């Protein structure tokens, strides 16, 4: 048997319901409920009505058509800004900041509107990478729940404060003489920190409290104990040959995933004669994005993380006692890991996602033992992404209760939602004078006495220092849309001495940086570049002090686990919930579960059988067999040790630890008054999932697991999954091997593919392209576009999906429509499991239109609305499409998307937003129809209307633009600079794109020189001749992936 990839349990075990479901390629049933069995004439829409409507609509169309053409106005500027040419995009360097997360970016601005975020390639931290949240943040700018003016509490609601001066006077009087706490997220902006210090010195008894919804307090405190610094060092995954992660999702959500993904990918690139890859071993409780990229992964209960760390430490020579590990596989994994670490001392790195200070102390000891300090861990520059200490928040609540603190200024955080004991926080918060600077209404802001909304970062000045000495500047790319004011300006106004010259943040910022950089020229250059970096990277080790190790080991040894435990995690889309009202992020399928719009309880197949009676191995008959193919999932009630409980639907996932329930934070945003959620917090956040923050255990420090009990409720809840879109049917979609086999004989990897190619080429010819088909091959005389995707470096982070959505005006369809498989994303990331259910290997494969040169979709279009260009593009012409959907049916890759409804308000007929039969359009979709939200649309891409097909265009607008530039400059080499949106967003540079006819282009070299042994096309035997090639995955492990040879 060949190795087998599977996307669902049904596929793996070939169950009854799976077979049933495969009979119908398109899952959706026709909603003809109205028809009953009475026959078509007695139905509610009989033939005569049809004729009546037909006649009426023809007449209506005739009348509508005879109307005069509407008058369009062209209104030029009164006084055109010099640097603005209507129709030409400007790019400004800026920085995405969100509670310590810092990504240097370049903002694309068209006609004064920011419409797209790109990574800043000048940054040596991120190297031009972005993540899904940064890509999606441009939509937050146009969020219509943003607060529009300063307000004060008026009974139960708020009333507008007419001017900033009035607000300053009122609040100034209210906070004078009070001890003020500035409650913010992690702030790494040097100017803001300086202003906060000035403010505190003007208001005696005040202090600054940094609070992170997902805390790194354990790590900060462990480093304080071991290295004397309450800080997080810089990690260098690129210097590590062995990477061991204990539950740290460093490719998805941990600390600075964009930075780490880039470093990590450097060690995953297959280059040279003798290929060397880094080795990644993951110990975790759930199956995380990072874990699914690992060469080897082992699971354990969340409470066992300390035991795993101790076992590793003990075997690496740290003076601690190794606890006994009952699980044989885990024990062997620890031994293997120790061997790998020992063999690579000085080139290894252990990271840990636990928020338990004791675990982190042991991890520090391990890193000392393997010589990571000063090599892969750099204390020469600290990472300033997270500063929050859990104990500070506890003290703040105590002080609010005791009256030691009697005013709180909240900026950028939402503890009323995200704090584990939010009731305690709310009660204390009610006792103090509260001012919120949050840009949108949220759970905390609702409780405040005064609100002065701050700008969105795209409207702001600012700076960030993500790492010591590495600065990234923020400059506004649009005038503030609403009557908002920078938080920093308020600090200046409320702390400045009378008659001070500087009374706004912009002036302060410019003065600060001009003085710091020495001259206006240097300042302007820095603003243009966006980043200021030292000439050479400072590298240094920290001074280690292992005194606390024994104490920590003792504490860990006494940790008691339970039968069932909860593991809390962040999703790559929603994160900690601060961007929960972003419909792009809500609709982004989770890389592993492929669920949109909700959180859920992730459990193992074993737990599913025990808890809800679903046996994914057999799935015989009844409701349980419907588990996979129907959106309705059984709901379980999870109760944490603190007595709080939550009811969530289950998702059964292979690779989960069998005793662990994994819950994602960031969902279940809710106003104090539940009915107000849609208006206050937003239509997209409303009803999306449940809040699980209250379940997080708290024992002096926040820990990210909790002992739990779980029970079946009997209820079901529909989840909108995009997973069951198609299955491999055993076809050659993926190829992978392990490093040993690859190094032994790289040609063996795709030998079978070559043989198959030969076998279907007629007459012993070697010319597969021309001789394996009856169709002629058309020449591509100038440019032939091609894309190459490296499966070795694709981590599945999904930044590309959001980038594509933003660039190409891809519609949001809402949960209801996703459930009906009407999702519109042009680029999806297919996830395949291989191996067994307890410990599967995972492959992510970005799937987009393959732009086949012999495209099956083109042949079947009755109106030639999809056809081929002489540059190798499979063109989709919306204005010609009549919506037969034959093309989608004939596409072997299922990448075509049909506009079942008018999702983005492109049509002039409002009725096109209503489904004719069944279902409805979610409120969150209407959010994307708002005039304000529509400002995010890219004016160079048609907004598709109802009834037309669409799909990936290879960002043709960018290709055309690059060709135009090359023609203007009379230099064909300039087209090498073109980047598609997905490629630009990718933090690991897994995607290459270019002109295949150009022998100097990256994509030509990859296919024909550098990676010729790994380059394959999906479903190549169909002879559709795709223009997208993939590079086979090579894992650095000795195991045979998917049991390929073991079974042979």
């Amino acid at each position, binding site marked *: 048997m060949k190795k087998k990839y599977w996307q669902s349990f049904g596929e793996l075990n070939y169950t009854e319901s799976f077979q049933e479901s495969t009979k119908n390629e398109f899952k959706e049933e026709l909603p003809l409920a109205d028809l009953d069995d009475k026959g078509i004439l007695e139905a509610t829409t009989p033939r005569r009505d049809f004729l009546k409507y037909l006649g009426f609509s023809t007449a209506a169309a005739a009348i509508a058509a005879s109307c005069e053409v509407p*008058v369009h106005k062209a209104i030029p500027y*009164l006084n055109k800004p010099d640097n603005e*040419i209507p129709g030409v995009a400007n790019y400004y360097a800026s920085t995405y900041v969100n509670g310590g997360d810092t990504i240097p970016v370049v903002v694309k601005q068209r006609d004064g509107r920011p419409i797209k975020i790109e990574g800043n390639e000048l940054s040596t931290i991120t190297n031009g990478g972005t993540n899904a949240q940064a890509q999606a943040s441009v939509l937050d700018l146009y969020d219509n729940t943003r607060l529009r003016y300063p307000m004060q509490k008026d009974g139960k609601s708020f009333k507008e404060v007419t001017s900033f001066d009035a607000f300053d006077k009122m609040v100034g009087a209210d906070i004078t003489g009070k001890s003020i706490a500035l409650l913010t997220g992690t702030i790494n902006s040097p100017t803001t920190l300086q202003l906060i210090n000035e403010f505190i010195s003007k208001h005696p008894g005040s202090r600054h409290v940094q609070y992170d919804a997902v805390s790194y307090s354990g790590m900060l405190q462990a480093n304080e104990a071991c290295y004397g610094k309450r800080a997080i060092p810089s990690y260098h995954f690129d210097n590590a040959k062995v990477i061991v992660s204990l539950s740290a999702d460093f490719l998805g959500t941990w600390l600075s995933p964009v930075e780490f993904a880039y470093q990590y990918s450097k060690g995953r690139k297959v280059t040279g004669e003798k290929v060397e890859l880094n080795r990644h071993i993951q110990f975790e409780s759930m199956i995380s994005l990072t874990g699914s990229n690992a060469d080897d992964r082992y699971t354990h209960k969340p409470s066992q993380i300390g035991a795993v760390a101790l076992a590793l430490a003990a075997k690496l020579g740290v003076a601690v006692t190794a606890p006994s590990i009952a699980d044989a596989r885990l024990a062997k994994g620890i031994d293997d890991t120790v061997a790998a670490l020992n063999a690579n001392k000085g080139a290894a790195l252990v990271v840990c996602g636990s928020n338990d200070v004791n675990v982190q102390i042991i991890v520090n000891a391990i890193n000392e033992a393997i010589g990571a300090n000063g090599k892969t861990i750099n204390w020469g520059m600290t990472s300033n992404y997270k500063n929050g200490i859990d104990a500070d928040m506890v003290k703040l609540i105590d002080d609010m209760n005791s009256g030691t603190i009697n005013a709180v200024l909240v900026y950028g955080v939402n503890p009323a939602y995200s704090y584990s004991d939010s009731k305690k926080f709310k009660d204390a918060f009610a006792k103090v004078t509260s001012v919120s600077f949050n840009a949108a209404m949220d759970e905390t802001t609702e409780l405040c006495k005064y609100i002065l909304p701050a700008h969105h970062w795209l409207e702001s000045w600012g700076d960030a220092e993500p790492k010591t000495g590495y600065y990234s500047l923020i400059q506004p790319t649009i005038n503030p849309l609403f009557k908002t004011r920078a938080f920093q300006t308020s600090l200046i106004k409320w702390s400045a001495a009378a008659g001070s010259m500087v009374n706004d943040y912009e002036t302060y910022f410019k003065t600060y940086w001009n003085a710091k950089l020495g001259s206006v020229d240097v300042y302007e250059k820095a603003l243009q570049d966006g980043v200021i970096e030292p000439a050479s990277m400072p590298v240094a080790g920290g001074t280690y002090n292992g005194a606390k190790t024994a104490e920590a080991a003792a504490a860990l040894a006494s940790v008691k686990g339970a039968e069932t435990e909860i593991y809390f995690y962040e999703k790559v889309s929603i994160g900690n919930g601060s961007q929960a009202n972003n419909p792009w992020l809500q609709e982004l399928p989770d890389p592993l579960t492929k669920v949109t719009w909700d959180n859920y309880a992730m459990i193992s197949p074993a737990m599913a059988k025990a808890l809800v009676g679903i046996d994914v191995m057999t799935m015989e008959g009844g409701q349980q067999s419907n588990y996979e193919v129907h959106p309705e999932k059984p709901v379980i009630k999870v109760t944490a040790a603190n007595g709080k409980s939550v009811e969530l639907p289950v998702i059964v996932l292979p690779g989960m630890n069998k005793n662990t329930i994994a819950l994602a934070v960031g969902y279940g945003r809710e106003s104090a008054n539940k009915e107000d959620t849609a208006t206050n917090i937003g239509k997209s956040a409303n009803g999306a999932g449940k809040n699980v923050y209250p379940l997080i255990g708290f024992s002096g420090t926040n820990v990210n697991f909790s002992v739990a009990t779980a029970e079946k409720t009997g209820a079901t809840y529909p989840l909108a999954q995009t997973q069951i879109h198609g299955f491999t049917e055993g076809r050659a979609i993926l190829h992978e091997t392990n490093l040993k086999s690859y190094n032994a004989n790289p040609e063996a990897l795709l030998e079978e593919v070559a043989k198959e190619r030969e076998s279907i080429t007629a007459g012993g010819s070697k010319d597969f392209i021309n001789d394996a088909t009856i169709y002629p091959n058309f020449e591509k005389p*100038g440019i032939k576009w091609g894309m190459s995707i490296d499966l070795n470096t694709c981590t599945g982070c999904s930044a590309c999906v959001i980038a594509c959505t933003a660039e190409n005006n891809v519609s949001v369809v809402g949960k209801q429509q996703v459930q009906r498989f009407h999702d519109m994303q042009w680029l999806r990331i297919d996830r395949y499991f291989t191996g067994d259910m307890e410990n599967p290997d995972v492959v992510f494969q970005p799937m987009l239109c393959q732009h086949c040169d012999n495209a099956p979709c083109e042949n079947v279009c009755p109106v030639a609305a999809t*056809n081929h*260009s002489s540059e190798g593009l499979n063109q989709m012409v919306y204005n010609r499409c009549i919506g037969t959907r034959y093309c989608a049916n004939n596409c072997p890759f299922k990448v075509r998307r049909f506009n079942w409804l008018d999702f983005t308000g492109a049509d002039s007929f409002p009725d096109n937003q209503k489904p004719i039969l069944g279902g409805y359009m979610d409120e969150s979709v209407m959010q994307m129809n708002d005039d304000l939200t529509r400002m995010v649309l890219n004016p160079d*891409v*048609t907004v598709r209307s109802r009834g037309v097909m669409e799909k990936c265009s290879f960002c043709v607008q960018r290709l055309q633009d690059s060709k135009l530039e090359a*023609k203007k400059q009379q*230099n064909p080499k300039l087209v090498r600079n073109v980047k598609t949106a997905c490629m630009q967003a990718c933090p690991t540079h897994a995607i290459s794109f270019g002109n295949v006819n150009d022998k100097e282009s990256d994509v030509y070299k990859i296919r024909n020189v550098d990676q010729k042994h790994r380059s394959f096309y999906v479903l190549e035997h169909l002879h559709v001749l795709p223009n997208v090639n993939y590079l086979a995955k090579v894992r650095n492990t000795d195991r045979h992936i998917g049991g390929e040879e073991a079974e042979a």
Partner: protein
Amino acid sequence: MSRYRKIFNRIFASIFLVVLLSVNQQSFAADGEALFKANCAACHKVDKDFTGPALKGWKDRVPGGDWIYRWIANSAEVIASGDAYAVKLFNDHNKTQMTAFHNQLKKEDVDAILKYVDDWAPPVAAPSALGGETGTSNDSLIFGILTMVLALIAFVLLQVNSNLRKLSDEKEGVIRPEPVPVYKNKTYIMVAILVLFTVGGFYTINAAIGLGRQQDYQPQQPIFYSHKVHAGTNQISCLYCHGGAQDSKQASIPSVNVCMNCHKAIDKYEGPDELVRENGVKVDGTAEIQKLYAYAGWNSSTKSYNPDNDNDGMPDGSKPIEWIKIHNLPDHVYFNHSQHVKVGKQQCQTCHGNIQEMPEVHQFAPLSMGWCINCHRQTKVDFYDKDNGTGNKFYSIYEKFHNDLKNHKMDSVTVESIGGTECQKCHY
């Protein structure tokens, strides 16, 4: 069998009629007309002197031989050669150089244009029953009459045929029913319906295709701005105001501050020509300049902008001018001015007509897809010639075309050859 033959005959005759009715010789002339409008109409009229001379009667004026082709291909060359008539022509028309067309017009094209000019007759107000059809030449009227006569003859012959057959049948003793009168004859009724359906459908579809097209659209603008005064009399470069045309997809209408660059000083209209609207109403140019001042917030007596008391960064009372957009493309069309002006090196007049002669702008071109495609098929790109290094170096990647040109497999590289008529060049 004879029954079938009868039906066959009638159907054949009907088809013959329809074909006769629908075919006329306009196709060739229409081609010439399109070419004339696209290439010549910016400067030439057929019957009147314009920027260039009237073209009617060119044959009697120009020296014989291939002079006319050489002149159209490159008039500068002919003038430089010292040709007496060429020099005279050049001097008589304000020494305005005629655009060289050797890149754009083939000999057949020139012939088509000249034929169009020769055949041209002043438009007659022809009340057409079917409406809308314009430019029916005398020839097609004759053809129409001929068609009708032939149709009548065919009809009469068919009747005679049927009568004769009846007679012969009677002679042979075959009893036949009385012939059905024409208006009750199902075959004829069917044929009539078919003809009506075809002709009606043709015009309905044509009318439907034309929906939203606005050729000759000429709305009244908020300010009577005369391109004739600015671009014609005062010779201001188009790009001075419409700078976007070389950098952007939009040519863009100039902002008010661009107008004020000159109009701070020019506050009266003192031009040689009277300003007259299309409907004959005279316009006071000075009053129109005052309107501009109102929009700009300019005080013409103090010669300064109004103060900015409301702190919006603009002089008080100023507001942007709401021009009415004349050239509208549907949302699903991507059109880039800089592509055409900078890379394609097209004259503004090619698409916008003789704009420097328009007191009020109207839409010159149909802006239909057929019109776009037609030009893309005919226009040659500035193809790179490897051997002498001329042309746009971008096209050096088209190795195949280079070889084909060399081997005479191809005589020129048009926009179409490099994919300029593919869907996703304009629709995405």
